[in-house]
């Protein structure tokens, strides 16, 4: 058995996973690409069992099992988040997810100089929090 074959397979799969994570816009597809990366790692772990002689036999396979369990947990939570996102915004495009804080560098200076104006700056974001996506958190 030549271990270079599964190793190269795993490396290519990992690269595909990275590509997918970065390329895909749909959150579910991103999760699938993450699965590809996880499986590539699994393949490396299992193959390593054959090439590396460890003190404990089958360590790689045990770790592969652990990773599979982790992947299951990850996919559960990840899909819950994706569904929540869909419920809030009727879309699962990850680059449309708003950041919780709009970038407002101005209040930092106004806090130092004129405390009164920070109230006016803070109020809109607090108001958007009521009906915006942040309201769920």
């Amino acid at each position: 058995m030549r271990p270079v074959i599964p190793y190269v397979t795993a490396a290519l799969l990992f690269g595909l996973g990275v590509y997918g994570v970065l390329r895909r816009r749909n959150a579910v597809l991103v999760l699938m690409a993450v699965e590809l990366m996880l499986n590539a790692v699994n393949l490396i772990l299992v193959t390593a069992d054959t090439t590396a002689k460890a003190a404990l036999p089958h360590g790689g396979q045990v770790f592969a099992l652990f990773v599979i369990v982790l992947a299951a947990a990850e996919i559960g939570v990840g899909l819950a988040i994706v569904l929540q996102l869909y419920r809030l915004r009727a879309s699962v495009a990850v680059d449309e997810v708003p950041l919780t804080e709009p970038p407002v560098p101005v209040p930092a200076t106004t806090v130092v100089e004129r405390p009164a104006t920070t109230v006016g700056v803070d109020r809109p974001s607090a108001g958007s929090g009521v009906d915006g996506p942040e309201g769920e958190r």
Partner: protein
Amino acid sequence: MTGADVLLLALGAVAVGAGVLVVATRHLVRAGLYLVVCLGALAGDYLVLTAELVAWVQVLIYVGAVVVLLLFAVMLTRAPIGASDDLDRPGWPAALIGGGAGLGLTVLLVDAFRWTRVELPAAGTAERLGEQVFRSWVLPFEVLSVLLLAALVGAIVLSRPDIGRRPDTASTDEGGRA
């Protein structure tokens, strides 16, 4: 080239090809199905590499549960049947980084192992692996179980909007969203 090598090559080609389709297809549902193919091919790889238990767990959990969950998610998010045009964003950074990672790892591994040959170890049956897990790796195993519990609770809390909210805002939000 032994038979194992041929098998590994074939299954690897199937897995990589299916992986390419997973990240390249414009059909959401098909991406899930290609993922099944890819994961199945990998399970075959595991079998060739004498990791029996891992292969069956792969089939059970990945192909059986994870992919089904993903397909549920695809359906719950009302993904269109057929090709979608808005699945991707501009791809050159992704290609650069992904290609870099994949090819870099390939070069690294090829450089490390060349065309060497190793003997396949004893089969990773459920008995051997169970012995290892419950003897040497029992502490990580227990930690993992706690992690699973946390993930379970997290998933429930995330999918139930009425948990952990103040009563006053919950009522107005329900009304506003209905």
